[in-house]
């Protein structure tokens, strides 16, 4: 439902996105991950017709965004920058959007109720907290009851209850068959919400797939405990092994291999545990950068 095809974008001499291709299926929540400056926002803005590709392109529901018949009712978006006039009330902001999008006025109060912003709806937006601004953005996104949702860091500024609410909302929307693409730097958050991930780094795709596959594909590690740890360490030298003290080793190889080597050499093992990689570890391995702290 969202297709990015050989999308390339330069800003001056900086290559923001380099020949990026991926697609997002209907009925899924897809996480769009990458370190800051990886090109996430540029890609999302191109999907939404706000940024012009230098080469390649992006499609939503089979068409470039600009050629959609009723974009307001087909695609909803939350972008990182605040996009309401500070002097306009949240409710009037949504009324303007509903008018321009040809949507019934009644939707305004419905979405305000939905994002739990009704109480502040008649206040001017300049007085809104970060969380309220984010909720207003979500209200604008949901206004047209869209089939495709594109969200750039929607959890920013939300409190834990708000994040939980957002997670449930995105899951519910996807289960209705809608397409949800959500960028985030809070990896723990993403891991709980998404079905698929697209990971980019320096404007290029590094991995796309179901989250379970992406995590499984990463080289897991094996924890071994042995009374003869130093000999075992020598035997496993070629496998990337490190002592963690107290007769414990961590080996960058699957448990089967470690067990076979130990058995072949008659080393006694007291423990052999497979350690599954987390999304965060996969992310760090693929992008080689510090993940932003939660």
């Amino acid at each position, binding site marked *: 439902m969202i297709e990015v095809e050989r999308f390339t974008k330069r800003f001056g001499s900086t290559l923001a996105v380099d020949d990026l291709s991926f697609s997002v299926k209907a009925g899924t929540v897809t996480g769009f991950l990458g370190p800051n400056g990886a090109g996430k926002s540029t890609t999302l*803005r191109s999907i*939404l017709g706000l940024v012009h590709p230098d080469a390649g392109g992006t499609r939503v529901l089979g068409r470039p965004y600009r050629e959609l018949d009723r974009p307001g009712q087909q695609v909803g978006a939350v972008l990182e920058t*605040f996009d309401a006039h500070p002097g306009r009330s949240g409710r009037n902001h949504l009324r303007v959007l509903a008018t321009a999008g040809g949507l019934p006025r009644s939707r305004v109060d419905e979405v305000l109720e939905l994002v739990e912003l009704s109480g502040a709806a008649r206040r001017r937006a300049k007085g809104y907290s970060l969380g309220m601004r984010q909720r207003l953005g979500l209200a604008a996104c949901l206004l047209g009851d869209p089939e495709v949702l594109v969200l750039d860091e929607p959890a920013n500024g939300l409190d834990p209850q708000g994040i939980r609410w957002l997670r449930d909302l995105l899951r519910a929307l996807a289960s209705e068959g809608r397409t949800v693409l959500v960028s985030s730097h809070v990896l723990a958050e993403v891991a709980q919400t998404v079905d698929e991930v697209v990971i980019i780094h320096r404007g290029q795709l590094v991995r796309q797939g179901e989250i379970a596959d992406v995590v499984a594909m990463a080289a897991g590690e094996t924890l071994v405990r042995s009374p003869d740890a130093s000999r075992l360490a020598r035997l496993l030298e070629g496998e990337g092994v490190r002592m963690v003290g107290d007769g414990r080793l961590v080996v960058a190889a699957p448990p089967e291999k470690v067990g076979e080597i130990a058995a072949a050499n008659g080393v006694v093992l007291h423990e052999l545990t497979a350690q599954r990689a987390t999304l965060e570890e996969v992310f760090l391995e693929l992008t080689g950068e510090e993940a932003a702290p939660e």
Partner: protein
Amino acid sequence: MTALVSAEVLKLRTTRAWIGVLLAVASFSGLGAAATVGSAPDADLGSVDLSRDVLSAATFAGFLAFLWGITVVTSEWRHGTITRTFLLTPRRARVLFAKGAAGLVIGVTLAVVALLVVLAVAVTWLAIEGSTFALDRDVVEVVVRIAASAALWGAIGVGVGAVLQSQTPALIVGIVWVLVLEPLLEPLLGLVDLGRVASFLPAHALASLEGEASSSSTDAADALGPWAGGLVALGWIVLLGLLGALRMARRDVT
């Protein structure tokens, strides 16, 4: 397109900027009208000429419509609201067209307010002096021309805003152009026998549309007629609109 124009008008109504603009229009036009009636010789009281002179105070509405028109485009970039505007209407030329229509609405609204204030001041003052506000076909025509001129001013402002895009520079360029450059260009062009060219500049063209009502009208010999003035102003709107549409279409919203 009707929906887009309604949305633009709703945008104008839902921030507080209009309060300041209306107050400015009302006070300046009112003061202008008072000054004209107050300084008129007794012999002129109740004359059609005085009525026309008094009405010219309402042309201030055009200048403010121009400035407000500029901000109709530039404030969207300034506050980032352009993002949602383009998300709903990705064919950006349509946005600009709707904004141009909003510029016309601004002009007519401000002109109506200015004319009402001017009439109120003039009628009251003349009544106190024991005279009346003379009305004939010409005076009514002046009223219509002032409103038309203010409407075109609003749309020209939208065009300037679309071309320049950033608010403060656009407002400064607009003010300097109308108040300094055009008045200076006229005598300068006159020196090289191109005085007639000056009458095709936007402020001059619209002064011609306002006709005798305008205090800043060109030398009668070089001035365009009201119809020609209006058409020239329309030409400027089309030109600025095309340039602005081109600039808006190309810009990345980041």
